[in-house]
């Protein structure tokens, strides 16, 4: 593994690895959580790696299905997911078609609730109580409810995944992460919810070069760091 690394970097925690090494953690039928919002902040090399390894029957958890050829959309559009838990699929018409044809199961969760469910998973909590969607046919369907101090709440269960993949601006060898502007979005939440978390970083910097005050995701939650080749898709607005 060390030999394959192009980055000459001390690897005192053994977390820095190659895409090939990272790919050993993916298998058919697994639960995979991904960072990103409309494709912004999704890890391009890991997504391509999953495609190339022909991983299928994925249960995906993340904000949305991206665009057909942007972000996680590349996986969804090729029919590699059997289910996704997301807040919307509107920007990826292929996802809508697959859903209509019964080839993709979609569990919709309100965006803020989804974020909290992912965070709750990452924080080792069982669920959160929210009044968002109380009495709403689709959102409350099959969910427990509870009255607390005279108000009705939905019990929204925590979400975790076998593997989480996130995209960071910088990582250090311990896996401490910082993100870039709005590419932060769901990444810090997703990073905590994976039983095994892989961060793809635009830049891997030496231990001690990130200011401890600025670290958004502590390396405690990150199991593996791989260098990124950068975004390789054309944006919807281009």
């Amino acid at each position, binding site marked *: 593994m060390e030999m394959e690394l192009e980055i000459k970097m001390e690897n005192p925690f053994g977390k820095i690895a190659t895409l090939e090494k990272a790919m050993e953690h993916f298998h058919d039928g697994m639960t995979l959580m991904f960072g990103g*919002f*409309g*494709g*912004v*902040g999704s890890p391009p090399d890991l997504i391509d790696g999953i495609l190339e390894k022909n991983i299928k029957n994925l249960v995906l958890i993340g*904000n*949305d299905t991206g*665009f057909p050829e942007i972000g996680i959309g590349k996986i969804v559009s090729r029919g590699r997911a059997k289910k996704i838990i*997301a*807040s*919307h*699929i*509107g*920007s990826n018409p292929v996802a*809508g078609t697959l*859903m*209509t044809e019964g080839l993709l199961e*979609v569990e*919709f969760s*309100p*965006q*803020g*609730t989804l*974020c*909290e469910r*992912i*965070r709750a998973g990452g924080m080792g909590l069982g669920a959160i109580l*929210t*009044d*968002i*969607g109380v*009495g*709403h*046919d*689709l*959102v409350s369907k099959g969910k427990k409810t509870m009255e607390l101090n005279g108000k009705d709440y939905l019990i929204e269960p925590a979400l975790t995944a076998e593997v989480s993949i996130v995209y960071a*601006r910088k990582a250090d060898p311990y896996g401490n992460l910082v*993100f*870039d*502007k*709005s*590419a*932060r*979005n*769901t*990444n*810090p*939440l997703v990073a905590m919810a994976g039983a095994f978390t892989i961060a793809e970083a635009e830049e891997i910097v030496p231990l001690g070069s990130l200011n401890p005050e600025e670290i*958004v995701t502590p390396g405690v939650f990150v199991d593996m760091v791989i260098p990124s080749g950068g*975004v390789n898709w054309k*944006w*919807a*607005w*281009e």
Partner: protein
Amino acid sequence: MGMGIDVRNRMAKRAAEEVTPGMVVNLGIGIPSLVPNHLPGGMNVMFHAENGIVGMGESPVRGLEDENLCNAGGFPVTVLQGSSYCDSAMAFGMIRRGRVGLTILGSLQVSKRGDLANWIVPGKKVPGMGGAMELAQKARKVIVLMNHTDKNGAPKILESCTLPLTASECVDLVITDLAVFKVENGSLLLTELFAPHTITEIAARTGCDFSVAEDLRVIDY
């Protein structure tokens, strides 16, 4: 119109009147995105995006887009002084905690009670609710900007919505291409109309009854 301002901007300009200094504002896609153009210069408004931005500014110059600085719709934006980035959980915490003063959304239908239906057309379009439910339920003020009727001329303001609801009894103000309604105590009050439209015309194109404000304003910008 003949006022040198198109219908969409007229609606946006009216919505801009609801923005007060210091307010945290979340704008939906489409017509709501035109609202900032109609705010007085130097007004300190903080535009909020669900993905995790507070303090968005105008769109970047073409060619200077930053792929990692986009609004919740995925389109490039800029930020102003005093802005901050956060994760999406915190962005929604701001909404649920009531710290977002105003949201301006598009909609498919609105009922006289202020029910909002803007997330699904069963059998046709199932995009998902995204962050609309949180915004509709929790922003301190909810304004809907939409055409008065759909492309077939059918009313979008109704006794009861026929489409599945995003959230019930959440809309405070409806601004259409024809008129402005306040939702008050479960019914609609016509407070303004855009020149040259008339009450009769508006009544004909609205799917429920409404009261007319004594001091009905005619907007002629």
